[in-house]
């Protein structure tokens, strides 16, 4: 078995203590994924596992053997940005940029969740289709903190990207 990282098969670490986050950064040198709190409180380490957003700091890499992981390096490249990355630039979705890879991966996972109708804590009708208004995006992105306080720009970037994709 192997981990599939951005489409490339890589060996899991020999030591089961290694988190997916450390495996990405220290072994594979994919340093786009960031280590913030390392205890599941900040969301900076968010990556996609088979399209679902997860926290790579709380994930033992061995546990994800056989799974397909997408990091920010798999989302876009310099000169070929993902539309959501461009939207973060256009709407001031960051200052220092440290939380941005996690914000982008989280938002991509969030958009898929909303599309398939997953409700949130602020959804009034649990069985209705989801409309990503401001309150919904705020709630759904609450697992990603931004110490620069760019949250309003982040929400603008996500909402306009959702509208553009509709």
């Amino acid at each position, binding site marked *: 078995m192997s981990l599939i990282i951005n489409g490339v098969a890589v060996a899991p670490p020999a030591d089961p203590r290694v988190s997916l986050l450390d495996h990405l950064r220290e072994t594979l040198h994919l340093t786009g994924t960031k280590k913030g709190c390392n205890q599941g409180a900040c*969301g900076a380490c968010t990556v996609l596992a088979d399209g679902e957003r997860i926290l790579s700091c*709380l994930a033992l890499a061995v546990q994800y053997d056989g799974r397909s992981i997408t990091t920010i390096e798999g989302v876009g490249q310099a000169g070929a940005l993902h539309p959501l990355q461009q939207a973060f630039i256009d709407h001031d979705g960051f200052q220092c940029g440290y939380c941005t890879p996690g914000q982008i991966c989280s938002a991509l996972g969030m958009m898929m*969740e909303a599309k398939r109708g997953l*409700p949130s804590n602020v959804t009034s009708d649990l069985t209705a289709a989801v409309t990503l208004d401001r309150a919904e995006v705020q709630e759904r992105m*609450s697992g*990603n903190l931004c110490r620069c306080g760019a949250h309003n720009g982040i929400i603008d970037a996500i909402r306009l990207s959702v509208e553009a994709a509709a």
Partner: protein
Amino acid sequence: MTPFDYARAGDVADALRMGAIEGTAFLGGGTNLVDLMRETVARPARLIDVSGLSDRIEETPDGGLRIGAGVRNTALAEHAAVRSRYPVLARAILAGASAQIRNMATVGGNLLQRTRCTYFYDTDGSRCNKRVVGSGCDARGGFNRIHAVLGASDACVATHPSDMCVALAALDAVVQVEGPAGARAIAFDAFHRLPGDRPDLDTILAPGELIVAVELPANPLAAHSTYRKVRDRASYAFALISVAAALSIEEGRIADVRIAFGGVAHKPWRAVKAEAALKGQVPDDALFRAAAAAEFADAQPLRDNGFKPLLAQRTLAAVLGELTTGAAA
């Protein structure tokens, strides 16, 4: 993190065989256990990964649902039957943690998560009877805003952190367990323990026992239910007080009701006194407040959490007001 061996269980029998060895812990989504291991609060010698075991949600013959222990929290909240027939459960799950954590966390692991008492985590500087039995409790005389007001002991004032479990307590869920001595079914209210003098034991699970499923009985009340959580910020924080409630109204009176509180005790707190005070009565705000007062009559607040009985009363009144208004409509 202390070194450990890791193995993935192929099925329940495989997990039980490997889990029978002392020092073994079962691993679900890892959202709590990995953190506890990193802080050296938990130091298992071996992890048996059971997160790939049953992730199915099935209808039971009596009209309820059987939820495999490996079902992710998101998948459970998203399930159509849960949203329509057990809305309190969907709402409780969606009120907990963050989306990323809900995508990772399993149902079995949610039941077994440990308290977020900060003294429990502070291995360097604090005494904690839950971490080291007999070492003392620094929460009782310390910063205890988030701590228990019901059912606590001299040894421990920690609260159970789960939202999902509060809904499961209100819904009379049954925990299906398999272990070295065979299979057994545990009523949800009996699954978690009060601390007594053994706060290291959160549940009645015996060593080597594995949660394989949680069953929800059919319950006509459950479709008319909700969950409300009060916390220090609007999202992604543990409950100060939470309420799970379901009720039915017949001929202007409360025919049946289920209530559980979170954030008040070492376990999800099924409010039998409040339920008794409500049944058969004409619903109004004064009744709701009296029911909460009955439940919290024996509350023993600490230095920083004296607000909890009144907050619980107001939260219950708001929830029951919402449900009775909806029932009348």
